[in-house]
């Protein structure tokens, strides 16, 4: 049943449209005929209540996520490699990480505001917190999953410690690190929407949908949500494609 996957989305769209006729209140269930034009004109500023076009808001959100995500990766990957290789460092950091990890990224908002004030730094910090832990934990896991034999082969073939790191540990852990990046990006993308609800923010998809609510424009909320979902889906798709292309050996180690 190749086409079965399309059935539920179609039913949802039809059901939504029927509901919009019955309820007849665009604030509760706006007709899709008022949502689609917004999506058809992503460069237009005419539907977005003067907050800039959909594309502009999306690109700002992507930039914020990208920045927080890159900082998180730049800290989490080296730390994860060190923790995965050294029991000493792992014992040193592990308890603190286990303590901080269950705190939801959004619980950091007040502290972020206290430390960094209103602005980009606070947003990037929230995203950093969201992306950091999955990247770190997967990196540690990936480094530990590097087979002992792979390391020993390198040793017997005369590899130095640095070569073992660059030519065996990193490539061996790369698929798992990549999974961490993918999961981390997903969480970062969720965080950016909420982080854009911070006071003093005036752009971004998260801001846009909250702003639309204040004006009772539910159709714009729905359009914004669709864009948020589609962008998340596309980026995840790219991560998956790269995974299949570069790391197709995973699970086939022999």
């Amino acid at each position, binding site marked *: 049943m190749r086409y079965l996957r399309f059935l539920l989305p179609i039913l949802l769209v039809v059901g939504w449209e029927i509901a919009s006729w019955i309820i007849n209140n665009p604030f509760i269930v706006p007709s899709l005929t008022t949502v689609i034009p917004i999506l058809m004109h992503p460069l237009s500023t005419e539907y977005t209540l003067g907050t800039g076009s959909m594309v502009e808001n999306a690109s700002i959100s992507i930039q914020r996520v990208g920045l927080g995500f890159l900082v998180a990766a730049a800290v989490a990957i080296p730390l994860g490699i060190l923790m995965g290789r050294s029991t000493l460092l792992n014992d040193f950091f592990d308890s603190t990480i286990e303590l901080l990890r269950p705190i939801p990224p959004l619980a950091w908002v007040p502290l972020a505001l206290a430390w960094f004030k209103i602005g980009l730094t606070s947003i990037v910090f929230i995203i950093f917190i969201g992306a950091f832990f999955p990247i770190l934990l997967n990196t540690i896991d990936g480094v530990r999953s590097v*087979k002992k*034999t*792979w390391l*020993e*082969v*390198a*040793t*017997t*073939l*005369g*590899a*130095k410690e640095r*070569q073992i790191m660059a*030519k*065996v540990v990193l*490539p*061996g852990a*790369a698929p798992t690190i990549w999974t961490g990046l993918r999961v981390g990006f997903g969480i970062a993308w969720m965080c950016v929407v909420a982080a854009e609800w911070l006071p003093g923010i005036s752009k971004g998809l998260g801001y846009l949908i909250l702003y639309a609510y204040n004006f009772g424009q539910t159709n714009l909320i729905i359009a914004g949500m669709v864009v948020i979902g589609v962008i998340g889906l596309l980026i995840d798709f790219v991560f998956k494609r790269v995974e299949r292309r570069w*790391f197709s*050996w*995973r699970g*086939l*180690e*022999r």
Partner: protein
Amino acid sequence: MSLVLKNLSKSFAGEGKAQVEALSHIDLEVRDGEFVSVLGPSGCGKTTLLRIIAGLDHATGGTIQLDGRLIDGPCPRMAMIFQEYSLYPWRTVIDNIAFGLEMKGMEKQERREKALEFLELVGLVDFAGNYPYELSGGMRQRVAVARALAIDPQILLMDEPFGALDAQTRNMLQRELLEIWEKTRKTVLFVTHSVDEAVFLSDRVVVLTSRPGAIREVVPIDLPRPRERTGAEFASIRRYVLDHVEHSANPSKV
């Protein structure tokens, strides 16, 4: 030109304060170009012995000398071939073989040409660009042999390299190994638990007792090569070696 083990011992910290003796007073001299098998029941410490010689484990007593020089740690004049999972799944066959040359800092073009020679030696030229998971178990072990030979070691240390293969492939690889041995005149130290394999391949078979592993008997195999497994002489030597192995596994039955 020879490998000399003098009074080699190894004990592990066992449960509580007890020391478990894995190897006890191993004295052995392997002549240059000789094919020697180390045979024993599982748990007799034969793999530990090989790992100590390869520099992957440390002896708790005794010395190893190669051509009169003491060896303590991995030595580029010896290469080890493991039972399985030793190829790097993210590298193509040719890049796996070139790994040791790459560690030495050889240029890409040069090391690939060199690797190709050894690929030819093991008859896998057509698979240069394939990945290990695309190869059968026998092919993968051929690649592992080529990778070890590529660094031009004096001694090949082989740890049950054909143990995971089916009987037919195993016999084929044994014959190929002998051909390669005759062509390259390497010294081979071959660990196995198969009496048949040891008698078929070796100039001498070293039978180890179990717990602690000590040399019970060194059996010279004077049969001309290629050896016929079904011959009467082969069978009688096999019987003789087997008796020693069985007695060393169950000393109470002596």
